């Protein structure tokens, strides 16, 4: 037998508010990690071949004739910190499993592709390369 007292009414209202806030928060959490998924989807629409983690990993580790590669700054493992090859500035781990902030901001991802592909390859990465790398990184 439910008698609605003012106390119960308040509790009901607060509970509903908490449920609403929690679900909004959960949505944010889910959405944050989907930034890279969304970008992979968008890249795939423009790319020639389906993306492959294997190709992404190989591109990441490949050394250029002048010795430059992604590992020059990020180090040999995505799970630990790297350091800038020239300034020594610490670079936080790339693996999203270790560093949840990775791959959550579109602008960030695009900026570092621009800067780092140009430094490593002397040109921008192709959509194929970006997709392969992004797919591989998102699984680490």
């Amino acid at each position, binding site marked *: 037998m439910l008698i609605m007292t003012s106390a119960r009414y308040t509790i009901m209202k607060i509970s509903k508010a908490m449920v609403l806030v929690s679900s909004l928060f959960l949505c944010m959490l889910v959405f944050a990690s989907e930034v890279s998924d969304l970008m992979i989807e968008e890249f795939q629409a423009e790319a020639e071949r389906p993306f492959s983690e294997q190709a992404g990993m190989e591109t990441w580790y490949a050394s250029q004739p002048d010795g430059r590669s992604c590992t020059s700054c990020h180090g040999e493992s995505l799970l630990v910190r790297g*350091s800038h090859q020239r300034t020594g500035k610490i670079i936080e781990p790339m693996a999203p499993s270790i560093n949840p902030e990775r791959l959550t901001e579109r602008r960030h991802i695009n900026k570092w592709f*621009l800067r780092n592909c140009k430094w490593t390859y002397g040109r921008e990465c192709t959509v194929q390369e970006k997709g392969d790398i992004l797919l591989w990184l998102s699984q680490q």
Partner: protein
Amino acid sequence: MSEQAGKIQTSLGSTILAAILFFGVGGVVIYGLEEGEVYQPDELYVDECGACHYAYPPGFLPASSWQGIMLGLEDHFDENAETDEETASYISEYLQANALTAGGSSPWSMLLRNLPDNPPLRITELPGFRQAHESELELLDGLDMGMEFFSPCEDCHRQADQGLFDKGLLRAGYGPAAR
């Protein structure tokens, strides 16, 4: 008022006064800043320009030098520091607004000394900088180390991120081992 109440009032008042003097005076001495003066660089600037090296205070270079840097982001001292147009525009404006200017009040106005008509892009090449680091330069000359030794300000100026470069806040030591 009873004698006892009077005594309590006096000791309480003295304690409060002492506390004010201690924290008030101590505050000024410890931080060495003018009251209300806090170094607060733009967050986006620090994010964009402080990812690979210390985010140098805008007041360290004159406007023309910053302009030169922003125009050459693709070859930023042999690195690529490009960013999207919107961000570059925002940062350019910020740098221009806060650049080293004659007549402006800044804790780093010594960097204006003997500034040439065509100022360098590197902070370490400013005559004012070299003058401020004269003894260090003499020391390094013997060790044959390039000016890049001075690029990471924060290696010796441990509170550089707070805009504090006082001699009293120096720490000797350089390189990865000192981090």
